[in-house]
């Protein structure tokens, strides 16, 4: 019988505790945080291997890999938080590449002094989002930076997925005549975030649209395998995404403003702030480009899915050596829908 007493380990104080430098030092404190928080919340067979990397079975097809870093203020917002957003964002990047997402990794950069209660809330929200999506977080990393050198928490997630044989989606595939479809209302995420920023205190009921789109993309690709391109219009909004595709494919586009769905609350908030919903971020919407003859079938599939009930046919692709994205305004005129310039800033007058 050993005479050495077993260590007493004080449980992590998730109520009042805060991140300190020891949580990133590689010592016991870090191991304990990983064990009591991350491993417990994300719990899956691959993470449980407990090694430096997760050993995964052969995926059986071409792989897609995507990564996304998440920095957001505020960390918690109507309709989600940085944790659920980090899961949805990367799943969506994998999904719009035509892949079925399989695994995620998560890297955390924590700022000294960050409340453990908030970290727990974020990690549990990530775990719930990953579980709901059926995509496990199989490996991860935690680092701590000194106070003032971070903004609470930054999360980088990487996802891998497998693409069905023969499928080749690309932003370079759009052809003159193609139809442009949008899965729902634009601007919800950006306006939800902006309405909660501390120096902008107006109250709205607008929720972020943050959602994992892989079941929607799967249904769309099954019904219409001839889809040319899928993209999720996040930062820079719908306008920026369409300009990217137009440039990549070497084509022009013509949109119909009246057919682009915007919630009245979002429209009102944008009006008030001098913003344009076309440039406001989304986290649960996608743009699809398909041959004209498939447009009706694709729209029907999108509308039948819970994340695409407000889907709409918003315009078409045409030949244009200048790669302009243009729009017939609801007013009856025509205008360019240009790239976002700098940051979207409110007007004065």
């Amino acid at each position, binding site marked *: 019988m050993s005479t050495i007493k077993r260590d007493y380990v004080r449980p992590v104080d998730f109520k009042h505790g805060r991140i300190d430098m020891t949580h990133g030092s590689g010592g016991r404190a870090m191991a304990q945080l990983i064990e009591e928080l991350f491993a417990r919340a994300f719990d899956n067979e691959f993470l449980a291997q407990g090694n430096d990397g997760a050993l995964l079975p052969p995926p059986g097809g071409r792989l897609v890999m995507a990564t996304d870093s998440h920095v957001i203020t505020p960390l918690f917002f109507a309709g989600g938080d940085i944790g659920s957003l980090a899961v949805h964002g990367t799943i969506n990047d994998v999904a719009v590449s035509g892949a079925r997402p399989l695994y995620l990794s998560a890297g955390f950069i924590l700022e000294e002094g960050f409340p453990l209660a908030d970290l727990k809330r974020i990690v549990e929200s990530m775990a719930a989002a990953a579980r709901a999506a059926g995509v496990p977080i199989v490996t991860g990393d935690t680092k701590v930076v000194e106070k003032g050198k971070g903004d609470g928490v930054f999360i980088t997630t990487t996802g891998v997925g497998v693409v069905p044989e023969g499928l080749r989606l690309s932003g370079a595939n759009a052809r*003159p*005549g193609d139809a442009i479809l949008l899965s729902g209302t634009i601007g919800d995420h950006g306006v939800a975030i902006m309405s909660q920023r501390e*120096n*902008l205190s107006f109250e709205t009921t607008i929720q972020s649209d943050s959602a994992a789109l892989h079941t929607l993309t799967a249904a769309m690709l099954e019904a219409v395998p001839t889809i040319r391109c899928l993209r999720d219009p996040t930062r820079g909004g719908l306008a920026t995404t369409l300009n990217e595709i137009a440039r990549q494919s070497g084509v*022009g586009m013509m949109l119909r403003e*009246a057919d682009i769905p915007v919630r*009245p609350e979002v*429209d*009102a908030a944008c*009006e008030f*702030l001098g913003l344009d919903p076309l440039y406001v971020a989304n986290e649960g919407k996608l743009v699809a480009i398909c041959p004209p003859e498939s447009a009706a079938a694709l729209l029907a599939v999108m509308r039948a899915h819970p994340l695409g009930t407000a889907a709409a046919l918003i315009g*078409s*692709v*045409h*030949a*244009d*050596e*200048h790669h*302009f994205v*243009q729009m*017939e*305004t*609801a*007013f*009856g*005129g*025509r*205008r*360019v829908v*240009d790239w976002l*310039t*700098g940051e979207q*800033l*409110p*007007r*004065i*007058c």
Partner: protein
Amino acid sequence: MKYIAEYRDGTLARDIADRIAAEARPGRTYSLMEFCGGHTHAISRYGLKDLLPPAINMVHGPGCPVCVLPIGRIDNAIELAMQHGAIVCTYADTMRVPASGGLSLMKAKARGADIRMVYSAADALRIAQENPERQVVFFAIGFETTTPPTALVIKGAQAAGLKNFSVFCNHVLTPAAITHILESPEVRELGLVPLDGFIGPAHVSTIIGSQPYEYFAEEYAKPVVIAGFEPLDVMQAILMLVRQLNEGRAEVENEFTRAVTPEGNAKAKTLVADVFELRKTFEWRGLGEVPYSALKIKAAYADYDAEARFGIRYQSVPDNKACECGAILRGVKKPTDCKVFGTVCTPENPLGSCMVSSEGACAAHYTYGRFKDVPVKAA
């Protein structure tokens, strides 16, 4: 959206457009200046020109608060932050205006200057209260619309006894600028800028009322129609101007009756008169020195005047030689007349101020209308 969609109704717009086309006299053009950047923006964003008959020639005016701010004033604001270590609070649009030495407020911020974007003057006052150990300067710019809020924070700072708050005042006046344009040789003698009438300011007029424009209508025999910033407002104002010109009238008419009265906002005007007085002269970008065209803080409030507190000296800085902002702001040239438009000067890397704000004539045309300059092939 309630009470917004109504002013953007496409069917109604086509009705007005048909009436304008029917009433415009054959063989004559109607050159109308929209003074305000807000109108310029609406014309471009909603594609109004596509609805108007060719007889209507819209001339962009200088009413873009960011565009008329001379380089030297931005330099002063950067100096406040970099040399004096003050927190400089500013409206967003001014962040990207090019200053001397390849700087802008945004670039100065990246070099460590503490420059903060605010949505209202009251936010600047709050920042001063939250940072008692720092000097906080509100970089006040804009026409009569943004002046009353500045007056309010100066009074608020005095009432709260704040020692660390001041205002760098750059407020300018609309009527002085219109007079200056009408007096300019290009309009009066050379006839380079045909000007038949004005679409009068929307938000500015809610403060100053419609009376100040009576002078132009009478003295210069130019009709003025005050109009809101919605596209239907602009269409209706154009129709009203065409009718005045056809009937040989030169009157001040008010299309924007839902917000503008002849007298304006008496309370706001009193507040402004209490805190500010006229500057003898002020440099406008594009227009040069314009007499009695701007405001300064009265001696009674000198404690809150950043120019006095920090000993700010104004130094005029000439525009880039290739930049045509000056001529564009006076209505002499169009953005496409400028050699650097869309080449060296783009919204990403603006050379001149007209390319910065979305209300600037160059930015509006680049962002919304430049497809008109090239033939676009249909599918």
